[in-house]
């Protein structure tokens, strides 16, 4: 059995100031298997991956590769790459201002003079064989997020790695692209590559994986054959408790308040990023959602309402009265809050503390001349750290050092602190574990029952069906349908997105 093992990690420990990220964790990867690494926020998945790839140095433990008896020393990402360990991270770590081909080959050739012509040709072949819609000479930044992700995978694949780590690769891919990636993963598996797959999508785990290792609070829960671990049990193991049935959280179908209690409405609204004018309205206490494939214009539409991009036309009404929204601050003053899709680039102020990140929006609303005092800020921070169960060493900790899900909670806290009337959540659960996902869904429904209007956007249709009472369906930057009540089924949504409605 030990013969086909490609990677063993034993007794891995890693601590950060104030946080024990990994404690005595074991991990085994065999040749030609897809191994899921699962766990909630802050369970230690990312840390384990970063130890393996040399981003962090482990405090204790052993790592062996390819059945060799001695430990391998991985001190830098370069060491890991040389040892045949390739990684595609959750957040894209390529250079957007270089070309696709340059991104695929940069840092791999020790020669000073680089045969770019040859590389471009090679890049073209790889992209073709993987069916990635990008040209080698294209600037990477001009590709969609999904394509950039796939270029990163292509780069890793081409390095003929023994261990391929995919850290949340599917968060920003649509279904077709995910399927494409899966067939690629199966292909690599057949060639004997060991693949570590970190994801929060349970269905995806069961679609491609052979084995699952579960972590919780930095400790190993266990390693399981996929066939022996039903989905419900997996979730229970990740959360460390019996799972409450997710499907029943929407207690009653939220009463359809329809046109009667409309708070915000938009007419013929368009922006620089969303050129096709659209109409929109939302009632008090309503949860609605924008759905559609990646790039269908979901985010662009809500961004137009918030004034995040340059508004080019249309008008917005609040309680029937026209209001002028051209910049985010205008929207905020009208009681609108927007949690952006891209947490890293648009959401967190990475180097500032959790406390400063939480009070930021309220501070801006109060104005330049009315700073929030230290004691008041600390009070707000403690209140929301407790309310949303944000896992942080202290309110003073830089938000950068929190896990993705906790960073997201900090941004949710930031907007809740402004007591908005209308909360727009753009992919709030992307890259977040099941437990936090459920928490956020519950929070959405609770806030709505208290009268807040909420627009909820998610790539997971199931999640939207659970929380939204009305779904606006978009395709190719146009609203193509609106579903409510009985029509809110996965089937119907799919058909509307695909254009099969008659």
């Amino acid at each position, binding site marked *: 059995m030990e013969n086909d093992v490609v990677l063993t990690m034993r007794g891995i420990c890693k601590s950060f*100031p104030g946080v024990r990220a990994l404690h005595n964790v074991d991990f085994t990867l065999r040749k030609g298997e897809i191994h899921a690494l699962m766990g909630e926020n802050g369970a230690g998945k990312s840390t384990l991956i970063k130890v393996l790839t040399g981003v962090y140095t482990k405090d204790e433990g052993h790592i062996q590769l390819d059945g060799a008896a001695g430990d391998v020393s991985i001190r830098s990402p370069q060491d890991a790459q040389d040892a045949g360990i390739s990684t595609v991270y959750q957040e894209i770590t390529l250079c957007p201002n270089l070309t696709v081909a340059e991104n695929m080959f940069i840092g791999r050739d020790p020669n000073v003079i680089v045969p770019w012509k040859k590389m471009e040709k090679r890049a073209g072949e790889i992209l073709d064989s993987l069916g990635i819609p990008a040209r080698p000479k294209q600037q990477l930044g001009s590709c969609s997020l999904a394509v950039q992700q796939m270029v990163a995978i292509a780069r890793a694949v081409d390095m003929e790695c023994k261990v391929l780590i995919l850290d949340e690769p599917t968060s920003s891919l649509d279904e077709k692209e995910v399927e494409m990636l899966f067939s690629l993963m199966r292909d690599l598996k057949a060639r004997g590559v060991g693949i570590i797959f970190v994801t929060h999508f349970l269905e995806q785990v069961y679609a491609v994986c052979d084995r699952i290792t579960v972590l919780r609070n930095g400790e190993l829960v266990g390693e399981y054959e996929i066939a022996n671990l039903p989905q419900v049990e997996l979730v229970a193991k990740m959360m460390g408790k019996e799972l409450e049935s997710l499907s029943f959280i929407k207690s009653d179908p939220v009463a359809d308040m329809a046109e009667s209690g409309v708070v915000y409405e938009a007419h013929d609204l368009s922006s620089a990023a969303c050129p096709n004018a659209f109409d929109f309205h939302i009632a008090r206490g309503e949860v609605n959602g924008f759905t559609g494939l990646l790039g269908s214009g979901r985010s662009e539409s809500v961004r137009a309402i918030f004034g995040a991009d340059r508004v080019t036309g249309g008008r917005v009404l609040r309680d029937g009265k026209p209001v002028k929204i051209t910049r985010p601050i205008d929207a905020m003053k009208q009681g609108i809050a927007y949690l952006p899709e891209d947490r890293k680039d648009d959401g*967190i102020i990475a180097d500032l503390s959790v406390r400063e990140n939480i*009070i930021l*929006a309220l501070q801006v609303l109060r104005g*330049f001349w009315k700073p929030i005092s230290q004691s008041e800020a600390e009070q707000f921070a403690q209140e929301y750290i407790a309310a949303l169960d944000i896992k942080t060493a*202290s309110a003073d900790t830089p938000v950068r050092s929190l896990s993705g899900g906790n960073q997201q909670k900090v941004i949710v806290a930031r907007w809740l602190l402004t007591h908005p009337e209308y909360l727009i959540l753009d992919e709030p659960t992307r890259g977040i574990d099941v437990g936090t996902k459920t928490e956020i869904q519950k929070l959405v429904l609770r806030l709505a029952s208290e009268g807040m209007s909420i627009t909820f956007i998610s790539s997971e249709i199931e999640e939207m069906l659970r929380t939204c009472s009305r779904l606006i369906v978009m395709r190719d930057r146009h609203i193509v349908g609106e579903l409510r009540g009985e029509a809110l089924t996965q089937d119907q949504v799919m058909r509307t997105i695909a254009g099969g409605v008659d």
Partner: protein
Amino acid sequence: MSDIKKKGSIQWSKYAQLIVPAVAILLIIVFNLIRDPSFFSVEITQNNDGNNVLSGNLVSIFNGASELAVLAMGMTLVTAACGGQDISVGALAAIAGSVFVKVLKSGASISIGTIILGFIACCAVAVIFGTFNGTLVSVFRIQPMIATLVLYTCGRSVAYWINGGATPTVSSPLITALGGFIPGIPVPTPILIVIVVAVLFSLLFRFTSLGIYTQSVGINQRAARLNGINTVFIKLLTFMILGACCAVAGVIAVSRLSLINHETLLLEIEMDAILAVAIGGNALSGGKFRLSGSIIGAYAIQALTTTLYAMKVPSTDIKAYKAVVIILIVVIGSPVVKQKLSALWQKLSPGKAVA
């Protein structure tokens, strides 16, 4: 017990940024104590005007660094918000100084009224030039160093035009008091001015949200904008504040000599100001900052210069010696060394935690 330790470590990390500048100053002090214990003696002497004043190397360090300290404070804000530096501060101080002198000369005699008027005028002019720099950076999104290269290049010519090419003197007991000592107060006036400026800055941070705004803009401009911050205005504001700092520095420098020499006034001080920000542990790429670090940095630079003068190093050689010390300070403060040190710290601390 462990709780106390934890609290202590958090407080410690809060001030970690100040370690490098503090160590730099400490090294210079220790070096001087060994070299010549009388270096730090401060005594009261009578100056030419018959006032009892403090004198000694320590006083001349604090006094001499006044312009630099004021500029370093403004430079810190620009660095934090824009992720770049203003290299035109010396030239702008020369312009401000020229305007100050021009106003003083235009009246029949120099009174407190004309001095106040002159200061307001040169402040206004400097803020306008600061706005020019800031507009290039914030509206046209030009790299700060390139944007301010314009004023760096032409600033001293502008200063030359203001007084028609002359280098007029402004002799008045009031100006001497401004650049030297106010009768009855033994502390040099420039030091008092720095204290006033520092207090103004701390009031600015206390009663406005400038601190969190500039840092947010510097760290993540897109997120700052989505949180309703007017990023263009904040960047502009930091340049306007730096403009006002240039005016203060220009007035101090003019008053010291009672004349304006547009060619040599605060020549090359921009590099020292940037260096003070860096020694203060502030990232030149912007974001989080500590004003106190930059102020300590300014005094460290001046302490170094004064030490070298006291060692009778010829003024032509001083720059070379300075460079050597600066390399040391910057390397100690570099991320690589910091990382190694904190790794060493972590290795040592578990033993402590058990005990």
